């Protein structure tokens, strides 16, 4: 309806279809000293992070079936082969160096820790890289009111949920097979989630800076696999040669596996637990700090 109102009649408001006329703040600076800063405030950082998390949740609702095999059955296979199969050979030989427990009880919490580490790494490296290069979710999120740090935190929420789901499945299996020997085992789930998060935060912070995919494959092949095999997981660190032991003690997976094992066997002491938890929490905190910076540099518009 193209009518021209004569000057001096109604206020100059464009007619709308239904609804009240919008309120425009006065344009003259003297009557409106705050100016553009009168706009409504952004939602808080938590609400924005949850919005990003919900995006990943919607995607997962469509693809969860394909992740069951590797997340749930993979560790079970390792437990069966290494724990029971190899365990029958180790138990026949003598388990004094393991602390007197059957091999499967020795190795199950380590398999839990390894699974948490792998969940953290795989969910934090490839989807983050894919968010920029493959399905471009981060680019789309950048066009909304989400800040780079909100995208980071939202994705970390989703990764933590995945780690918790995978670890919960495995802890239930451990308990069902009678491999948890102490009531401290109720803390196995938070411990493995902390371990996975400690790996996920720095990996996501690093993966967002990549231009090609190959460094992630190298990190997995030359970082995660040796960590998995040599950090006191399948055999105690005392079996390693002398010069290799300090390196093993410095790795994060050793702290995670030692924490999980001490909780499962009931040999946990306050000092050792504080050391392991402190190490992992420090690693997570450094990862969060680094992630805020790299996400901002990569994604800020």
């Amino acid at each position: 309806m193209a009518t021209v109102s004569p000057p001096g009649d109604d206020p100059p408001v464009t007619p709308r279809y239904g609804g009240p006329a919008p309120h425009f703040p006065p344009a003259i600076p003297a009557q409106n000293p705050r100016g553009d800063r009168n706009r409504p405030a952004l939602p808080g950082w938590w609400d924005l992070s949850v919005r990003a998390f919900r995006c990943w949740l919607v995607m997962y609702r469509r693809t969860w079936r394909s992740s069951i095999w590797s997340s749930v059955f993979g560790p079970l296979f390792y437990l069966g082969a290494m724990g029971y199969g190899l365990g029958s050979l180790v138990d026949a030989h003598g388990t004094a160096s393991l602390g007197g427990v059957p091999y499967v009880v020795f190795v199950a919490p380590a398999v839990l820790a390894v699974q948490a580490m792998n969940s953290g790494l795989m969910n934090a490296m490839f989807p983050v890289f894919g968010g920029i290069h493959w399905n471009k979710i981060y680019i789309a999120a950048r066009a909304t009111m989400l800040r780079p740090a909100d995208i980071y935190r939202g994705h970390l929420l989703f990764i933590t949920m995945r780690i918790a789901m995978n670890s919960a499945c495995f802890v239930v299996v451990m308990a069902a097979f009678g491999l948890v020997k102490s009531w401290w085992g109720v803390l196995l789930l938070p411990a493995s989630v902390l371990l996975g998060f400690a790996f996920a935060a720095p990996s996501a912070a690093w993966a967002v800076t990549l231009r090609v995919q190959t460094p992630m494959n190298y990190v997995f092949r030359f970082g995660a696999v040796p960590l998995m095999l040599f950090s006191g997981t399948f055999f105690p660190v005392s079996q390693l040669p002398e010069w290799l032991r300090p390196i093993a003690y410095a790795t994060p997976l050793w702290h995670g596996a030692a924490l999980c094992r001490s909780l499962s066997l009931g040999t946990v002491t306050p000092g050792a637990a504080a050391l392991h938890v402190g190490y992992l929490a420090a690693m997570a905190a450094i990862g969060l700090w680094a992630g805020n910076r790299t996400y901002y540099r990569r994604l800020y518009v």
Partner: protein
Amino acid sequence: MGVEPTVRSTLSGFAFSSLPGARGIRLIERHARFYRRMWLVVASGAAEPLFYLFSVGVGIGALIGTVPGPGGHPVPYRAFVAPGLLAVSALNGALNDSTFNVYGRLKFEKLYDSVLATPLGARDVAASEIGWAVLRGLIYSVPFLIVMASLGLIASPWALLALPGAALVSFATAAAGVALTTYMKSWQDFEYVMLVAVPLFLFSGTFYPLSVYPHVIGLVVEWTPLYQGVVILRDLVLGAPSWGLLWRAAYLAAVGLVGLAVAGRRIATLLLV
């Protein structure tokens, strides 16, 4: 499809390319040129079985002592597990290039469509993919064998046949992989590849002898392909060869040839040749 030209080799005058699938060697050359720049990506996968050798073989070996080996007498655990991991390295080398990469080349790079513009046919493509995967399996197996020799885990001159044995394991894996990949419909289907490969890796007598299993499960495992490869390599490396190994080798060769035939037909169907 028309007349396929034969190229006479200058050395022997024999029309090598008239053999079915022989022209596929050109596509293998293409893969070699393609990966020449990123050879580290190809070769770095050889490290994983070596890590397993040092951690499981040497590290856990100290917790186990000796295991009854082929031929009855006890062998140190690391000498028992090393040939199993050699078979696994041959499997790993062939697996990636016969599943994920074939799917990517077929559906996304559309490489095989462009190959059809040359004198190569669908059976040449199948043969070359399997051949390249076998080469990659050898790229993984040869360093592993060298490390085994340097650690003193080779007990007999029969181990010279371990390299053709590893190539046979790679051939069976590659042929099965390419044949099954032609039936995949989406990237989600590749979870099944890991679902098959990881249990094969863990449960085929690589880490412990079959006597650990209850009898029925042991019978089932005896029919799986990786177990045949593990037994062949273990008996050769530890010096207990027997004529029964030829039957096992025939099993692997049969798997490979069936896979080759199926792959050729399926690729022809997919490319609408």
